[in-house]
């Protein structure tokens, strides 16, 4: 889901840089106002975890690969705003040092995986969990937080790919950047994430949530201040 350089036109990647900048600024401001030193190790670990889990490429036999992002569990543990920082740091290092995702597309990739995804995951979790104290429902909420978060992030990425032929073509109508239209990009990206990669993200999110609730329940932002 890391958009490389050359797939997005400037009229797409520049506004997405702008959007990510706004979220970075607010996230850093909130982090400054609301965080204490004891939160720092979890932020560092969430960023490292997001970096690492993205290295585990999962194959679709004979086809393509994909991976989880870890933004779902980051949002539940740190809150969505701090998760923005964690996942963005991982994505920026991936782009600069490892060429995974383009330099021009850092704004877009952060918007898709470090903004859309943690906020979606967090809201889905809150929505499904509600006021229920059922453990089953809690883990279902964790699963769907990861599953829907990653899938929506993939669909937004696909839309960015898919609008390129419409907004950036040469005089003969040949695409200048990402060549596939929405009718190809969206179904491909949506299906592979809904059927496989999203399920992995969901399972990882639910399992880690369970692990934290057992060992360090106070570290779970999404359950703070709720009746346990």
């Amino acid at each position, binding site marked *: 889901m*890391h958009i490389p350089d050359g797939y997005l036109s400037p009229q797409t990647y520049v506004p997405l840089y702008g959007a990510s900048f706004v979220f970075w600024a607010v996230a850093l401001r909130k982090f400054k106002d609301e965080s*204490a030193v004891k939160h720092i190790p979890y932020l560092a670990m969430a960023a490292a975890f997001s970096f*690492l889990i993205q290295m585990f490429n999962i*194959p679709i*036999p004979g086809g393509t690969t994909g991976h989880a992002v870890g933004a779902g569990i980051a949002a539940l543990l740190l809150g969505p705003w701090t998760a923005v920082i964690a996942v963005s*740091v991982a994505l920026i290092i991936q782009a600069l040092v490892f060429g995974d995702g383009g330099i021009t597309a850092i704004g877009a990739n952060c918007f898709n995986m470090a903004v859309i995804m943690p906020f979606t995951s967090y809201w889905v979790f809150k929505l499904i969990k509600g006021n229920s104290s059922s453990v089953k429902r809690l883990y279902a909420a964790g699963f769907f937080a990861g599953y829907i978060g990653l899938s929506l992030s993939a669909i937004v990425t696909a839309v960015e790919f898919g609008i390129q032929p419409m907004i950036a073509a040469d005089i003969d109508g040949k695409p200048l950047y990402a060549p596939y239209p929405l009718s190809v990009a969206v179904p491909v*990206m949506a299906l592979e994430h809904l059927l496989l990669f999203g399920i992995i993200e969901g399972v990882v999110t639910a399992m880690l949530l369970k692990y934290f609730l057992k060992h360090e329940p106070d570290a779970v932002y999404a359950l703070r201040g709720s009746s346990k």
Partner: protein
Amino acid sequence: MTRFQKKLWIALIIMALLSPLGIILPQKFNSGDAWGEWGADALEKILGYVPDGLKRLSDIWKAPIADYNLGGENASLSVQIFSYIISGILGIALVGGIVYVISRLLVKKG
């Protein structure tokens, strides 16, 4: 650092050591690039041409460890596996280090 946190850092290092599964499994199952992440050469094979804008932008940045691989495009699998583990460890250090620097500058409360 609490004992729980120490355990988590160790788990992250184990993840880095296991990360080569992320290149071995796709090779075993004959899976190509992630959708939409083809290089210009691969795209030429799929489409028969490389879109002009894409060609212009695709080489804008030379990453020091491109594709988590120290050995270049024709590196053997063992070099790739080694590179991947190094990349994972380096990733933990870089990402963790940057978070600590940012936090240092911003967070004042104990």
